[in-house]
């Protein structure tokens, strides 16, 4: 772009210095060339702005920058997780056919669903804070902490909901309680992360 503007200047000088042109024509030409130069300058500024924006966006990928946002679980984050878990989880938990379906499922498949959902949540949280799907060794420690915070925040809500819906009772067996907890926790975790994504 800069080279273009220098070429314009040379053309302008050579054109203006032509003897066959009158003064009026010369001033007209000068104005034309100047306006063209202004346009080029404006184009350069717009391009620079775009470049700066992309550079700033790239900075978010720096794990040390993202550290400060991920390591502090504020009350706002906790509330988001709780609300997300309730908004997305409650409709499923209230529906009786959901529990009928859960009763038909094998325990190992419930366990695998839980592991898969947890893994998805880790990936989603990594993307949420770093704008990339690639993992960073330094950042993974922070990510594990964040996942733990989210997991326990959701667990507290899930336990309260399940107790109030009589899906966890003292007379039940450990296996039934664990099955209900795992499946509800998977749904709640997904809800919590989805809500923070929607907010973004």
């Amino acid at each position: 772009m800069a080279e273009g503007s220098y070429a314009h200047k040379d053309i302008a000088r050579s054109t203006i210095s032509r003897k066959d042109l009158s003064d009026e024509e010369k001033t007209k030409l000068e104005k034309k060339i100047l306006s063209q130069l202004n346009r080029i300058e404006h184009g350069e500024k717009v391009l620079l702005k775009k470049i700066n924006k992309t550079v700033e966006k790239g900075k978010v990928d720096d794990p040390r920058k993202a550290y400060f946002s991920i390591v502090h679980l504020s009350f706002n984050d906790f509330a988001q997780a709780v609300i997300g878990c309730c908004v997305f989880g409650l409709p499923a938990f209230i529906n009786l056919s959901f529990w009928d379906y859960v009763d038909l499922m094998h325990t190992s498949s419930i366990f695998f669903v839980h592991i898969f959902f947890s893994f998805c949540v880790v990936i989603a949280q990594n993307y949420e804070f770093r704008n990339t799907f690639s993992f960073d060794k330094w950042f993974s420690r922070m990510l594990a902490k964040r996942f733990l915070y989210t997991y326990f925040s959701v667990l507290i809500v899930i336990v309260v909901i399940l107790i109030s819906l009589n899906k966890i009772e003292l007379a039940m067996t450990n296996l039934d309680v664990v099955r209900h907890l795992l499946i509800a926790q998977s749904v709640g975790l997904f809800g919590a992360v989805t809500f923070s994504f929607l907010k973004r």
Partner: protein
Amino acid sequence: MKKLDFENLLKRNGKRKHISHDTFSGETFVDNFNIDFIRYFRVKSFLVAFIYSAIGAALFFGSDSIYTFFWQKSLGGIVAVFLLMVAFILAFLTSISFFATDSLKKALRMSGRRGFYNSFTIILAFSIVLASSGNFSWGQQFYVLVKNFFSAVILMALISLPADWLITFVTDVMSEKAEKGQKSKKEKVPEKKPGP
């Protein structure tokens, strides 16, 4: 990374006496006294808390007199004692960190985080001891697990938390003193003047 001037930092903060630098995040904290044992949850703290929690759980499941003592009490009473203990622990951690930082918000955040990590460690130790001692089965009534959990956690917390805090605090202070001693020794050694 820029080297920190600790003496200047202390001068700027007036009466405050202790500086703690988090090498991982790069943050520096200036407190009235050493509260690193609350601020950080390091491998040392985890190991001490885990070992003493496991000892507590082993005592609960191993000793008949302790086990029957808890099983004679009602579940409601045990849960009430558990909640009281949690409130006391949080109040203790908050008050200490409040006196050190002069900020209730920071104190609450620190105590909450420390309490969370301690509870995580205790639950982990309880689960391992429960599974290895044979006191758990999938067909067992959930009531048994709940009562065992709350009873064992009371005992585990009473043993592991004071030990964790005390050992971490004492070792922190000792290592700090040793560092200061080494620094003063280095300062005392006169620099060699270049000879003719």
